[in-house]
């Protein structure tokens, strides 16, 4: 009984000590205050939400509100002063096809997003070159036999204009080639999920998607110029179809916003939660 009592007292003391020390740490970090509003890319949203959760634990006085709508709304919201951070799948401080540069905005790299070309499981083709893909998406190649498959019409599935995935895919996988709408065998989808379902259920279909979505047996990722779409190949530099995800800010970030971006870029977050969400740490890329 005496032993038990002693044990309880020790345990209680320990708990109080630990709590006190934690409170001390929190109090020390509490100097950081502020409100961060984040808007933009839905692809980066899971990463943003996870980072916000962890950051708010460290700095309870910082309020973070994050939402996703579409890549271009990120820099747009920053420009209008609605958001402090605009998440965007491309570097919006530079011109990309269809979108002009946002002047005075700084692009902060936060993650690496790999993309993959996917085809329906009935398609016999395993490898496509940049030229072949550009031909398919510009409507010059319309039959699978022209790229080494069976005699069947290619069904092209693409994302709507302005999608971050589309912007990046066009720049990296098609070598800047156009995506041209066609009378038939051409379909636009509104989200990554729709894209996956459409390619999975349409025979002879080709599409493109974030690499993390490539699961299941109804779709398969094809090699790009002979290189398989894997995170390892992205890191070692042989697979070229990937892009940085950016946090756009008006000028250089300051205060809580700066701290938050630095937290997302920190080794701890990059190698921990970010990897768990199947993004690739920016430090893994050479150049």
């Amino acid at each position, binding site marked *: 009984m005496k032993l038990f009592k002693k044990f309880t007292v020790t345990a209680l003391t320990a708990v109080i000590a630990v709590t006190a020390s934690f409170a001390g740490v929190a109090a020390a970090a509490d100097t950081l205050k502020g409100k961060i509003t984040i808007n933009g890319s839905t692809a980066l949203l899971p990463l943003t939400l996870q980072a916000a959760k962890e950051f708010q634990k460290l700095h309870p006085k910082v309020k973070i509100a994050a939402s996703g709508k579409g890549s271009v709304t990120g820099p747009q919201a920053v420009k209008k002063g609605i958001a402090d951070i605009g998440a965007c799948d491309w570097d919006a401080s530079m011109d990309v096809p269809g979108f002009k540069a946002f002047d005075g905005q700084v692009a902060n790299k936060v993650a690496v997003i790999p993309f993959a070309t996917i085809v329906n499981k009935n398609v016999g083709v395993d490898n496509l070159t940049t030229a072949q893909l550009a031909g398919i998406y510009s409507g010059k190649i319309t039959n699978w036999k022209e790229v080494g498959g069976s005699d069947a019409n290619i*069904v092209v599935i693409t994302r709507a204009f302005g999608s971050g995935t589309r912007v990046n895919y066009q720049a990296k996988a098609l070598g800047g080639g156009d995506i041209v709408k066609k*009378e038939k065998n051409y*379909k636009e989808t509104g989200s990554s999920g729709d894209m996956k379902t459409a390619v999975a259920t*349409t*025979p002879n279909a080709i599409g493109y998607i974030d690499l993390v979505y490539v699961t299941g047996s109804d779709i398969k990722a094809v090699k790009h110029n002979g290189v398989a779409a894997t995170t390892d190949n992205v890191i070692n530099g042989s697979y070229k179809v990937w892009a940085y995800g950016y946090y756009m800010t008006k000028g250089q970030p300051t205060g809580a916003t700066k701290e938050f971006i630095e937290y997302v870029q920190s080794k701890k977050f990059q190698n921990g939660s970010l990897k768990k969400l199947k993004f690739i740490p920016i430090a893994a890329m050479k150049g």
Partner: protein
Amino acid sequence: MGAPLQSLASKAPKKAEHSILNDKRHKRHLLGNTLSRYYFFFSILALCFVLGLVIVFIGKTALLLFGEVSPAEFFLSFNWTPEEDIFGAAAFIVNTLSLTALTLLIAVPVSVGMAVLCAEIAPKWMKSFIRPVLDLLVGIPSIVYGYLGLTVLLPFLRRVSGEGLGDGILAAALVLALMVLPTICRISDDAIVAVPRKYRDAAYALGSTRLQVIMRVVLPAAKRGIISAIILGMTRAVGETMAVVMVIGNTPQLAKSLFTPSSVLTSNIVMQISNVEFDSTWNHALHMMAFLLLLISFVLILIIRVLGRKREDA
């Protein structure tokens, strides 16, 4: 309401206390009546106010478009290439109208037929089965219909037609028809049930067959209800977005055949609005398309109301 209550109150009192009690009750009733009248009045006023705001705000943004693009281009051009500043919405308008027409063409005969079956022909156990099933169908979210269309209907259409994709206004019309069917059917059903029994009895007494009774007596008598059922179904078909987006193909071009991947006003708005900059011509064009949808459903409702009234008079 006031008059019968008053006469009741004046007949009832025999003793003085009773009369006071009734008087109090009467006043309470009057107060309740007045209050509820005000409540209903303000409800309708609030509704009109909100509707007005919606029209004003969408319209305001929409009309900015015509400072940048000529109405002639917007309404008459079939070329929608907003990334190159070409905003012709005629294809969407025509597609919306033809999709709605096709949907009704499929849904109305089937659903009115089912309503007749439910109300006139089916035995009791069948009615008590069909009606709850139809009510359930209304509650299914439209995106689920769209997903089923994408994963079940499209592969089927591909097999039947030999098309590569199968997307187009036929697929969209089939999905929409299934969605509006319970609405049209249940409201027509109620309208048919509400036709007084004596009409049928009289027709039968004159020696009509059952088909004659249904076609010549019951359906004409229930016409008003059936028409409002069709209106409700149609407005749902015009405005439906999520289910259509998944099966129509989303390519901004005129639907020249049943299987041409195309786009309607709603599906084009939902596909593009999140990828478009605020305050751009493109955004204003999308608002104009929303405004147009509002006008289209308004005009369609108006036309059918006028038609319904004319036939009623004749």
